[in-house]
């Protein structure tokens, strides 16, 4: 057995062991390259939307306060107007209710009245008819009495005639004596009788006439009474309807006028508020051109502060890939929701390094709830729903 084989040195095992570890390291490095980016380095993210101009924070705060006050005032006004409108509505409703109730009451009243009128008219008619009847009866009685009188007179006449006949017969003898006279007398008598008969016929006719007249009178009176009752009823109904109509119209008119007045008052109020706001804004404008310039700067500054917050948040979340190029720049378009939540982020201008782009997108997603947006004025919020962020690695180690 060869002597050199007896001793096993440490050189070869050491080489083998180190080679093994190197292999393990190489495998781990090759198998893990697609994993996450981690670098808490102080990188710089620049947002393109910014103007680097700086203004005093006080002006911005004042502007914000003013805007807040204006917003609060407007809100209060709106609330007052709403309240007023609601009150007006309630009032109108109440009035309408009242009117409805009134109309109901009136209708009932009218109905009552109509009923009463009808009853009254009926009563009246009945009374009149009764009266007419009584009158007719009275007339009839009168006629009866006349007739009786006439009868009595006729009887008396007949008696008288009979007596006269008697007398004539008595005087027959005498007639012979005084025939001429008798004849003359007879003639006179005949004439008189004729006259009498004519008068009687006349009386009879007159009586008939009177009866007819009474009948006609009664009918006429009844007709009259009915017509009067009808007319009365119609008139009353008409009156009630007209009154109800007038009342309703009046109330409608009243309600409309009140609503109109309310509306006008509110309009007036709103106009006055608007005028006031306008005058205030005018006053603000008058405060000085420098102030307006400052305001513009403040708006920008508010934007800046928001952008700065976003930038710092994104910066914290950004882990620049280790092997990325120093000069790489990627622009990310960010869309925000109303409460600052991230709706979407997309690379609008790629740096050419997809890992770098992805790291920027991930940074935006990690920094996501930009709740600072809610603290911004409403007008500015709309502007910052969408903005671009420019990612550029600064002093990466």
């Amino acid at each position, binding site marked *: 057995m060869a002597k050199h084989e*007896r001793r096993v040195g440490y050189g070869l095992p050491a080489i083998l062991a180190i080679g093994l570890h190197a292999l393990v390291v190489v495998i781990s490095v090759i198998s893990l390259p697609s994993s996450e980016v981690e670098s808490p380095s102080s990188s710089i993210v620049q947002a393109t939307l910014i103007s680097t101009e700086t203004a005093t924070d006080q002006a911005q705060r004042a502007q914000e306060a003013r805007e807040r006050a204006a917003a609060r005032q407007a809100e209060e006004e709106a609330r007052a107007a709403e309240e007023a409108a609601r009150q007006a509505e309630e009032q109108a409703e109440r009035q309408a209710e009242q009117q409805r109730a009134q109309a109901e009451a009136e209708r009932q009243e009218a109905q009552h009245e109509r009923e009463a009128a009808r009853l009254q008219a009926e009563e009246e008619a009945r009374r009149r008819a009764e009266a007419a009847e009584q009158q007719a009866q009275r007339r009839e009685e009168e006629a009866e009495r006349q007739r009786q009188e006439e009868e009595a007179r006729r009887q008396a006449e007949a008696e008288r005639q009979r007596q006269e006949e008697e007398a004539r017969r008595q005087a027959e003898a005498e007639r012979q004596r005084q025939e001429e006279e008798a004849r003359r007398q007879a003639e006179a008598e005949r004439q008189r009788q004729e006259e009498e008969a004519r008068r009687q016929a006349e009386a009879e006719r007159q009586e008939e006439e009177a009866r007819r007249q009474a009948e006609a009178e009664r009918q006429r009176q009844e007709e009259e009474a009915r017509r009067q009752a009808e007319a009365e009823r119609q008139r009353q109904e008409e009156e009630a309807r007209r009154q109800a109509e007038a009342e309703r119209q009046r109330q409608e008119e009243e309600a409309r006028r009140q609503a109109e007045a309310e509306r006008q008052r509110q309009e007036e109020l709103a106009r006055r508020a608007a005028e006031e706001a306008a005058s205030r804004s005018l006053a603000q404008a008058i405060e000085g051109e420098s102030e307006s310039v400052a305001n513009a700067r403040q708006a920008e500054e508010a934007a800046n502060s928001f952008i700065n917050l976003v930038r710092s948040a994104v910066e914290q979340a950004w882990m620049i890939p280790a092997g990325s190029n120093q000069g790489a720049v990627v622009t990310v378009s960010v869309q925000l929701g109303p409460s600052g939540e991230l709706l979407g982020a997309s690379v609008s201008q790629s740096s050419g390094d997809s890992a770098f782009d992805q790291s920027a997108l991930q940074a935006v997603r990690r920094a996501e709830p930009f709740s600072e947006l809610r603290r911004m004025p409403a007008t500015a919020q709309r502007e910052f729903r969408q903005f671009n962020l420019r990612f550029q690695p600064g002093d990466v180690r």
Partner: protein
Amino acid sequence: MNDSMSIFHLIINASTVVQLVMLILTVGSILSWIVIFQRSFVIRRARRAHQAFEERFWSGIDLNELYRETPSEQETVGAEHVFRAGFREFNRLLPKTRSPQSILDGVQRSMRVAWSREEERLTLHLVFLATVASASPYIGLFGTVWGIMGSFQSLSMAQQATLSTVAPWIAEALIATAMGLFAAIPAVIFYNRLSSESSKLLGKYEDFAEEFHSILHRNLQGRADSDAA
């Protein structure tokens, strides 16, 4: 390459204590692997040498000739070493004493010493493997705990505690445990394997020593008989 979350970057960015722990573990792993390779080679060669020696020993060769052919004592290993120690002691004692029992005692003692040296040689550094196997998980765990402590300390200063701010620290800390396990697992496996192999070889040496002892005893018994006759 986008590998700042890779093991390499995590190790580079770790805190000093964790880095130290990682260094210790790396060194321990490398040393344990050196031991593993070295022991594997040694035991494989010892097994081969033992097979070759046994073939020669039982081939009916004269023991004096075999003793002369074998190299000097410092370079012999395994059963050959045992044979040389025993036979040399036998040759030295044979002219000095006539008592076969004392010769056999001396031979046995000498072979036991040689066997014990062989045992020491075979199990050399295996204790180191056992140490690495048992200690490196704890060392790695220590590194992890230390790293997580550091991560929470830095987290208390951060504005917002998201998972993404904690994750690198945790990953970095967990690397220490991973490295500890990476060092410990092969050490455990190879410690068991190498120690069983070496004990098997030592058993074979012991068997050979007994057989050689019986041969010498037979030889002495024959000479005592011839002396008595």
